[in-house]
């Protein structure tokens, strides 16, 4: 806590940037990352408040996925820190970060292809309950009725109820994305990172997903969404950060972003706002 506290104070003092936010959950502080001399991220500062849905948008190659990867420990930043709920995430391995309550929904579905839909959802649920390792070779998987009930509920939520016993590899791409979402949701993370949750979905599926994410919001889950689809962004986001060329060029409410000239410039010809 104290490290985080110090970092927070330093940052606040130096930059005079949204000085003290009491309910801040995720704090990205001056993160740099370059690949072979190419600056993927430079001086990125970002705060996510408790309970909000924070969207990160930006043109292709702006560094959105890199930022997410830094958050979950996949990529080590060259400089800077990511602090979550008082714990520094930088230097932690992916499973530790997840155990702290940060779950990620992948852009390209990363599900357990050989397992069934139900099993896919139960595995993260067990992880939440039992921690990162528990030697339980004699605890029957099929005896986990509580978790199964919960998993079934979540699966129903994402609309895969009638595919619950299918092998994940036989799902369509869209269904795999729903499954991804379910795997994130069942962990009840304090912070859910969604990497383009609706990419490649048909319009009415997208709407269903939006509804679902809204419902979760009511439960008070904090979310960070990377999204291309502005329809999704403006339907869900409380606040928006715009990333371009590895830098945050604007931050604010959806209304502010909509009217920000810099954003329009960055997106010119790329996306319809």
């Amino acid at each position: 806590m104290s490290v985080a506290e110090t970092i927070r104070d330093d940052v606040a003092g130096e930059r005079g940037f949204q000085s003290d936010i009491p309910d801040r959950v995720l704090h990205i502080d001056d993160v740099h990352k370059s690949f072979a001399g190419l600056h993927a991220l430079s001086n990125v500062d970002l705060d996510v408040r408790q309970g909000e849905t924070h969207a990160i948008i930006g043109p292709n190659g702006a560094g959105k996925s890199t930022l997410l990867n830094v958050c979950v420990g996949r990529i080590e930043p060259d400089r800077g820190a990511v602090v979550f709920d008082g714990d520094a995430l930088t230097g932690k391995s992916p499973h530790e970060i997840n155990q702290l309550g940060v779950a990620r929904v992948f852009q390209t579905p990363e599900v357990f292809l050989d397992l069934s839909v139900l099993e896919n959802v139960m595995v993260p649920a067990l992880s939440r309950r039992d921690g990162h390792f528990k030697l339980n070779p004699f605890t029957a998987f099929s005896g986990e009725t509580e978790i199964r009930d919960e998993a079934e509920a979540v699966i129903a939520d994402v609309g895969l109820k009638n595919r619950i016993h299918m092998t994940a590899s036989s799902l369509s791409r869209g269904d795999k994305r729903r499954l991804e979402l379910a795997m994130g949701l069942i962990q009840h993370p304090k912070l859910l990172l969604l990497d383009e949750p609706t990419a490649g979905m048909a319009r009415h599926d997208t709407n269903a997903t939006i509804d679902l994410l809204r419902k979760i919001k009511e439960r008070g889950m904090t979310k960070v969404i990377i999204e291309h689809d502005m329809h999704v962004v403006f339907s869900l986001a409380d606040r928006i950060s715009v990333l371009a060329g590895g830098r945050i060029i604007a931050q604010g409410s959806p209304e502010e972003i909509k009217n920000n000239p810099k954003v329009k410039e960055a997106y010119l010809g790329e996306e319809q706002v």
Partner: protein
Amino acid sequence: MLGTFSRSDWLLLVIFSAVVLTLPWTLEPIGAAYPDLLQKFAIYGIFAVGFNILFGLTGYLSFGHAAFLGVGSYAAVWSFKLLTMNVLPALALSIAIAGVFALLIGYISLRRAGIYFSILTLAFAQMSYNLAYSVLTPITNGETGLQVRAIRKSAEVSLRDGDVRIIDQALGIPEVGVPITNLFGMKMSGYPGFYFCAVLLIVCFFIAMCISRSNFGMMLKAIKSNQNRLNYTGIHTRPYLIAAFVISGMYAGLAGSLLSITDPIAGAERMQWTASGEVVLMTILGGAGTLVGPVLGAGLIKYAEQKVSSWNEGILHGAFSFLPEPVQDFVVEFFSFFVGEGWHLTLGLMFMIIVIFLPGGVMEGFRRLRRAFANGASPPPRPVATTTPIAERD
């Protein structure tokens, strides 16, 4: 745990037990019903079932499992030499030592994955083999193999050449010549030895079944499916892998121990890479990831090694004596290519044919047969690729 086994699981266990225990009758027609081969079926069955816990569930291909088999064998013989001819201490000691050995090797090897992991395990096993054959001869008795001996007459005789058997001596158990392993007086050679191994095989099968159906087993399957994802799900995969490695190492230690129990000699070649390769082949041949497959694979390979290798031309002539002379000669000529000293050729062809036509091993064959019977039609082709064949829904 027990309550959550499904009815088909119980059925499988009961059928498996019944089949194993009746092998001395059912294998009679194919000439395999004699104690040594039956023991080998059971022992290598245990070895393969254990190997499958690592390879079948997690997908980590160890090429050094024979090291644990060897360590288990040596530990058991040393138990016979130093403690008692009773097999229980030998069993416990073998499993424990193999487990510790597996923990050491697994802890290091599991820092890497894929083929790098395979080569690390292979390297450890080959080092064990080479040293056991030469420099470690004081412990292993090298080429000749570690054997049980009569009680030594003086402390000058090295322990390799004369035993002490502290417990048996303390209990005043009389010995004539070189004693035989026993379970509280019951001889562990011949059929009692087989039944001892068979019971342990059933127990091991049951444990493997529990593991496979447990949370732990599910995590192992998830590792095989997508280890990376599992990390992002909050699971620390390495301890799971190490646990699986150690468990399968203990299975191997148990199998090694049983080899020494049914035949008290331990040789270094049990650790050679070919022996590690053998268990890999058994598992894949039978069907990796299935419960029964590895046991079947072990049986097939041991049968080929013991029986197919013994069919010489004389026996072939006997078998085909119903054919007219010239045809008989031709047929015998043809088959002698594949049996007797040509048994390796049969083995090689079997590997190729099974993996080409039945990618899931023998068990895959059974599944197809069942499907064929169920549908009454030709079985549908099995989707090999794991990519999504279905287009976007909607």
